[in-house]
């Protein structure tokens, strides 16, 4: 068979992405129709920048999602076909069997794997890790930033110093340290995970307790339920048979997180939370001077109710914008980790690893590195534009 022309490649890629286009069009039509009723999200559709950003982000979200469901990928992203090593985009597979896609749409890499499928699967890796890790970083930052800003004084000085200390530490060196076998053997990453991942639990418990403590009949079952579920998830996440932190017996462990991924999570949360901490602290210091905070204090509300229900909801604007930006940073960080081969398995289709693989033959074969690099760029650009749009729209009315 002849190799495909560029026009044919584009057409086939587009066709392969059909579910993504359908989902995108549906999302946009519905959102624009109801934009007046959707609050800040709806306002996003008044800003061109915001819409472009949102479209880019959602493109990758849908690509990752449908890719994981097997709707888009043409080949197994780990399968190697020896004859396809370093083949240019659109090359046909020789002696193809029935039922296998006859082309490598975006070429093959140095091991003969399909670049297109790896790009799609790489998107799924990002979608799994980046938002969740950012959520964890926010939980840590918020839970520590609120009291630091609200109480001030020594607590603030201590926590801020700690945050500065972490921010001053060279990130890459930190990552290298965390994946060193000797360090893993001491269990430091596991202990760090145990410490960092408890924050969402603390957050949820304080949030609900401060709100409902006047109504024990509602509060107690609610807390038991929520903390039970979260606690089990937490234990499943941090506890692992054979590692230093081994609390749950194997049968009760809901899922196992590969230790590499756990390290990635830990590092991303660790380096992102100080920045979130500082933002939350600053916002808290500003908002705590408002009269409604004084009003809450004069009716005898506890400090945590004031922080979580009076201050935090009113700091949401800047936090949402920062959340978008921070997913972008996390994506880049993931790329960096992959590029250095830290944490993720060496075969992983994530973009960082793929770029690193492609780098070696970059002078001769551009495409294996270019495709993931461009994917990374477009997703982060989309997130930044989205954050810009949100900021702009939240300021207007």
């Amino acid at each position: 068979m002849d190799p495909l022309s560029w026009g044919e490649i584009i057409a086939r890629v587009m066709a392969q992405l059909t579910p993504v286009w359908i989902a995108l069009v549906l999302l946009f039509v519905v959102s624009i129709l109801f934009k007046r009723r959707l609050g800040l999200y709806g306002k996003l559709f008044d800003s061109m920048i915001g819409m472009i950003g949102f479209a880019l982000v959602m493109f990758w979200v849908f690509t990752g999602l449908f890719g994981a469901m097997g709707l888009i990928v043409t080949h197994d992203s780990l399968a190697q076909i020896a004859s396809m090593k370093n083949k240019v985009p659109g090359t046909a597979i020789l002696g193809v069997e029935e039922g296998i896609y006859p082309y490598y749409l975006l070429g093959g890499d140095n091991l003969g794997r399909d670049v297109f499928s790896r790009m799609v699967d790489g998107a799924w890796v990002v979608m799994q890790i980046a938002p969740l890790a950012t959520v964890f970083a926010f939980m840590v930052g918020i839970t520590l930033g609120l009291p630091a800003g609200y109480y001030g004084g020594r607590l603030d000085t201590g926590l801020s110093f700690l945050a500065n200390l972490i921010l001053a530490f060279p990130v890459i060196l930190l990552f290298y340290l965390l994946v060193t076998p000797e360090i893993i053997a001491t269990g430091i990453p596991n202990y760090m995970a145990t410490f960092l991942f408890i924050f969402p639990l603390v957050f949820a418990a304080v949030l609900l307790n401060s709100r409902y403590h006047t109504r024990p009949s509602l509060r107690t079952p609610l807390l038991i339920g929520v903390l039970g579920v979260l606690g089990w998830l937490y234990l499943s996440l941090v506890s692992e048979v054979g590692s230093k932190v081994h609390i749950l017996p194997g049968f009760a462990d809901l899922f196992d997180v590969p230790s590499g991924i756990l390290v990635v999570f830990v590092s991303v949360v660790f380096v992102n939370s100080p920045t979130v901490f500082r933002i939350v602290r600053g916002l808290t210091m500003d908002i705590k001077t408002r009269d409604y905070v004084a009003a809450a204090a004069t009716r005898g509300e506890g400090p945590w109710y004031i922080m979580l229900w009076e201050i935090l909801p009113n700091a949401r604007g800047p936090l949402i914008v920062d959340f978008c930006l921070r997913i972008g940073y996390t994506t880049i960080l993931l790329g960096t980790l992959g590029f250095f081969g830290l944490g993720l398995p060496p075969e992983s289709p994530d973009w960082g690893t793929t770029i690193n693989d492609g780098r070696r033959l970059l002078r001769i074969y551009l495409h294996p590195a270019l495709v993931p690099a461009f994917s990374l760029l477009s997703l982060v650009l989309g997130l930044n534009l989205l954050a810009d749009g949100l900021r702009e729209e939240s300021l207007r009315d």
Partner: protein
Amino acid sequence: MADTYDGPILEIDRLSISFFTRLREIPAVMDFSVAVQPGEAVGLVGESGCGKSTVALGVMQDLGKNGRIVGGSIKFKGRDLGAMSADELRQIRGSEIAMIYQEPMASLNPAMKIGRQLMEVPMIHRGSSEKEAYDRALQVVTDVKLPDPKRILDSYPHQLSGGQQQRIVIAMALMAEPSLLILDEPTTALDVTVEAAVVELVKDLGKKYGTSMLFISHNLGLVLETCDRLCVMYSGEAVERGSIADVFDEMQHPYTQALFRSIPLPGADKNARPLRAIPGNFPLPHERPQGCNFGPRCDYFEAGRCDVGDIPMAQVPGNDRHATRCVKFQEIDWKAPMALEATKEKGEPGKVVLRMDNLKKYYEVAANALFGSSGETKVVKANETLSFEARESETLAIVGESGCGKSTFAKVLMGLETATEGEILLDNKPIQSTAIEDRDTKTISDIQMVFQNPFDTLNPSMTVGRQIMRALEIFGIGDSEDARRKRMLELLDLVKLPRAFADRMPRQLSGGQKQRVGIARAFAGDARIVVADEPVSALDVSVQAAVTDLLMEIQREHKTTLLFISHDLSIVRYLSDRVMVMYLGHVVELGTTDQVFAPPYHPYTEALLSAVPIADTSVEKTHIVLEGDIPSAMNPPSGCPFQTRCRWKDRVPGGLCESEVPAQKTLADGHQIKCHLSDAVLAEMDAVIKVAAE
């Protein structure tokens, strides 16, 4: 060209300005005309949202990207500002037209020394040399009566007080000797005594330099003191225009009349002349009614005449340049006295509920912020020996300017801070050293507070109903969600808000409505003592009356003790039974309202009274301008706290004022004063406010 021109300095003709949002065009100013003659000061009065600041921005041609002039013209010295290029406008702004804004700190560059900022003006506009510019700056700073001009020129904005900063802003505006000065609420952010001094200054300088002024304010009293003519605006339109005397004494528009009736005048009796709120709400720009904008709220409304077609400005015959936008102005009997509503019986003060005994609150402040624990500490005496008692269903007003310690006192009473010394007795139970977290629910719900800023008093991300229900929850009222919801709706009834507001977000409410929700929340636990911290000072005058009346009505029903913190003596006189005047943490005068508002005064009370702008041409005031600013509580003057600004100081022999804090002395039954002046001197004092005999 400019020198030979002798027409009006500013001529605004049928100006219309609209803002364009993504939903619709919002007309902010419609068919607005005004002329400012050379050397004349014209006041622009109206409530917030009436478009008065938009007019000023229109004159400066600085409407932002959403705003546009959609009709009419603005002529400055005969030249159309709308037709000028950006370059020509830049030449005029700052040199021929200068503007003074409300917030002085925001108008000064914090990173530049005052002198530099002032010198920029002539250096840019006239190409003066550095030396000339400096001399000019020095002269202007002397003109605005700032002490030690050389030192001022060499300091940064943050080193000056608010009053001094505003003087610098005025100086900067005068640097280029503009022909027109636009003042947009120049004194709203300042204390009354400082305001009085700044207003005096603006008046003098206007005369000295012959500058024309456009004075924008919501305060009719201020306009009376500063302006020659005024223009009343309502909902984007000028409704009445004329000389001060014509408009104040022969008003020809129902809105102007309603506005005057809603402000308390210190000269009048509260029973003979009760406050009257304007019914209804200010219309939103896109919901303006047909015909007369004021129609739906007007007492003289006549269907078929007032609600059809546009209503033009009509000249009032017999008066000079006096015009009104009312079709019925010649039929209305303007002299008719206002219909008296049934005089409400005032509740008699009952037993003593709250007693303060020698309450002191000191703060320790580290002199060195960076290494706090090691350096020496300074003591800020926020409250010095506060003693008074408050009875059931009594209104006690606490009067004083910023920094006088009234907010600290409120904090100690609420339990947000604990007292350093002395006692607070609630029902003879000491609570001064129980912080709020240790107080029982009953004590907390008994003492509640209404806050000053309506835009800040409600949590913006929670519905109104939820916020009131939360207060009920905390106070342990109602045993189920339904019971609390029912009680919350009753509270909304109490503050006269529609029940549908329960599901609204605070941003959907107007300032007055928010303040009502704040009151409902304070009364959620049947509070017996309510501390109202300037509850109406941030509201428009027409709304102020309604909220004040609401507070008093609830007080009558619930026999509440109201501690009314305010700097507005007109409203204090109107509603309070007793008045306590504070200065730098000291109670300088305490007595019934009549005792405090009549001589003999404490010298500070006297100055405060004279500083209140009164919107009544028949009132004569003694002008007392206090020198300097309020001293810092960190570094109070020795002896009497007021001695640095007191004009009676030389009447006390032996420099006693500088060496000793005066003792509290009782003048008449229940009238206490903290002053060294002898009884004979006190007896010489004249009344500050005199109502001219008619």
